[in-house]
């Protein structure tokens, strides 16, 4: 059950050229600002298309340039926390969080679905955003937005998690809480995760694997 | 003309039937008054469609439902006759009209047929001859009076007779030539007088029944009613002459 990506993509000032495979757990990507981290997540999610390469989730190919495979983003079953959150401005916090639940065919089942809705309630509670349920994203603070974005991505328990600096706007105290919950989540559901972070401590805490990239290439593989 | 079909099998006339009548817009008021009277005599429901004669002609050509057509110009009726769309022997010259000189209030004393070439009259409005029947007659009259070329610079061509009335009523032109029936609608403008009948070819409102009419019999009955003394009286009240 491996996650594999081999991505080649020309950018303006350099090219992404990267290959990596990991079985489970959290892969931390580190790298300087502008190194290509977000671009890699975009390619894995299908929002950007590599010029060449292959991407596989749990050994099923979702992108293969040569074979002409390109599974659309919506069928890749991922959870993505965008660097700028991208919360739907027309939906309340709660609507944002439960938005994806109904989309997964495996949760068509009513019981399954209400289980997830209950989970979303639990997450909002533990993340300290339950009191914001009915507010719109433009009416909450930066750190609150970030927690909503994280909740939205994990609540559907996707096949792969892509997290682009998901804790950066949180104060130390709030971080502790979210870290704890995320650690429990990682433990319980064993979802392969790609985490971008600049924080040494986070990397320490969550990384099962760690790579450092620069100008689109892996310059260091740690762990 | 082309061969005509025999009148369609009649519907029971005591039942309420619908007759579609396409009539020149200038007849709106007169026909509406007649409609009220006719309702007392017949169960037939009169569906009038009022528009410019050119529009009516196109609609009939494209197969719009119509049993009786009253046109404001000979040309439009001729076109339908050539296309074999009217019952040829039902065609009549139903009404006539006169051409009237009207003037803006402040020019009431200055405007006469003779003064049109003079310095006191700076603008004259008529319907566009190519498309407005009244304009065509006005051109003829001005030509016959021998002043058509002299007044070219003063001419303001209007889209329809209504527009001529509005120009005169608002004082934006000094005078205009319209049908007598239309001149009755002036608000501030004044009627100077009719041009001589022989200054232009006769103004005629031809009428005819349409072939393939769904209600030929009922339509024919109403058509007869339009030629009664009562109807003639109404038309005369609205400024038309009855031929």
């Amino acid at each position: 059950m491996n996650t594999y990506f081999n991505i080649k993509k020309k950018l303006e000032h350099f090219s992404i050229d990267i290959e990596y495979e990991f079985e489970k757990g959290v892969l931390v990507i580190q790298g300087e600002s502008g190194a290509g981290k977000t671009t890699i997540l975009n390619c894995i999610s299908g929002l950007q298309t590599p010029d060449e390469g292959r991407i596989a989730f749990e050994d099923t190919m979702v992108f293969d340039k040569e074979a002409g495979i390109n599974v659309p983003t919506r069928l890749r079953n991922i959870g993505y926390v965008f660097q700028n959150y991208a919360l739907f401005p027309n939906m309340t916090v709660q609507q944002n969080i439960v938005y994806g639940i109904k989309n997964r065919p495996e949760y068509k089942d009513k019981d399954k679905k209400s289980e997830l809705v209950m989970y979303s309630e639990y997450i909002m509670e533990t993340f300290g955003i339950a009191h914001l349920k009915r507010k719109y994203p433009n009416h909450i603070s930066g750190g609150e937005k970030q927690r909503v974005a994280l909740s939205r991505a994990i609540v559907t328990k996707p096949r792969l998690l892509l997290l682009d600096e998901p804790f950066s706007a949180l104060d130390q105290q709030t971080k502790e809480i979210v870290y704890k919950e995320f650690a429990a989540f990682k433990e319980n559901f064993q979802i392969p995760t790609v985490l971008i972070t600049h924080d040494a401590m986070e990397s320490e805490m969550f990384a099962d694997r760690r790579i450092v990239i620069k100008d689109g290439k892996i310059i260091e593989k740690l762990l | 003309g082309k061969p005509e079909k025999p009148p369609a099998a009649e519907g029971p006339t005591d039942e309420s039937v619908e007759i579609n009548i396409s009539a020149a817009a200038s007849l709106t008021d007169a026909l509406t008054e007649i409609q009220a009277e006719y309702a007392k005599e017949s169960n037939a429901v009169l569906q009038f469609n009022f528009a410019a004669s050119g529009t009516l002609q196109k609609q009939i050509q494209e197969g719009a439902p119509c049993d009786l057509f009253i046109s404001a110009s000979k040309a439009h009726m001729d076109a339908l006759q050539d296309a074999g769309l009217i019952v040829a022997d039902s065609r009549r010259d139903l009404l006539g009209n006169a051409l009237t000189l009207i003037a803006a209030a402040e020019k009431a004393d200055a405007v006469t047929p003779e003064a049109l070439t003079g310095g006191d009259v700076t603008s004259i409005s008529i319907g566009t001859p190519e498309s407005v029947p009244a304009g065509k007659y006005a051109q003829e009259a001005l030509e016959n009076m021998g002043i058509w070329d002299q007044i070219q610079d003063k001419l303001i061509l209007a889209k329809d007779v209504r527009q001529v009335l509005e120009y005169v009523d608002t004082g934006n032109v000094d005078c205009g030539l319209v049908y007598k029936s239309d001149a009755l609608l002036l608000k501030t403008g004044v009627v100077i007088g009719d041009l001589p009948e022989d200054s232009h070819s006769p103004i005629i409102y031809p009428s005819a029944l349409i072939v393939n009419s769904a209600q030929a019999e009922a339509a024919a009955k109403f058509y007869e009613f339009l030629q009664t003394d009562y109807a003639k009286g109404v038309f005369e009240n609205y400024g038309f002459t009855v031929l």
Partner: protein
Amino acid sequence: MWSPIILSLKIATIATVFSFALGVFFAYIINKKKMPGKNIWETILILPMILPPSVMGYLLLIAFGKRGLIGGFLLEHFGIQIVFTWMGAVIAACIVSLPLMYQNVKAALVSMDPIYEKAAQTLGSSEWKIFRTVTFPLAWPGIISGIVLAFARAIGEFGATLMIAGNIPGKTQTIPTAIYFAVESGNTQLANRLVLIMTIFSFVLILGLNTWLKRINYIGKQG
């Protein structure tokens, strides 16, 4: 006096509903799906605004008349007659108001940040669901603006309507036609009354849609 008012409202409302659906549909497929020949499609859509209404009316008369391609087909197979019925007026009003819907929705789509649609993709939404839940609500101000203009144009439509629907009192006579002929026959009082009623209508329409627009206040309250 009431019959043209009711008829006008009915015609304008139905026409607006159709031009709304068509306008949104065309704006979406032409601008989001990158249809080839975009400029040609847009030219065709805009033509009914540029051509004089009487020409539009004549073209409609030819197409929908008894001998017309569409009109003949409808009459023969369904016994439906378009010319001289309120349906003719609906078609005329719909076609002349379509460019307004189209352009407004297009502007809204073009200036929309695509990140929200991308986020919805990562959450597994189908294209149709994304359209319903994200694209459409975010385009709402542009759509409202299109509705206002389309309705205004539809209720004010005159030239083309007169040609295809005729001016049959009680059957196809709309307010603008009634005004035209009231003016024509010197009935200034009736004309003034009808103009006043049109003015009141548009006031109510604008009031209603502005209120609606204001309730969508999730945009623009950012700190």
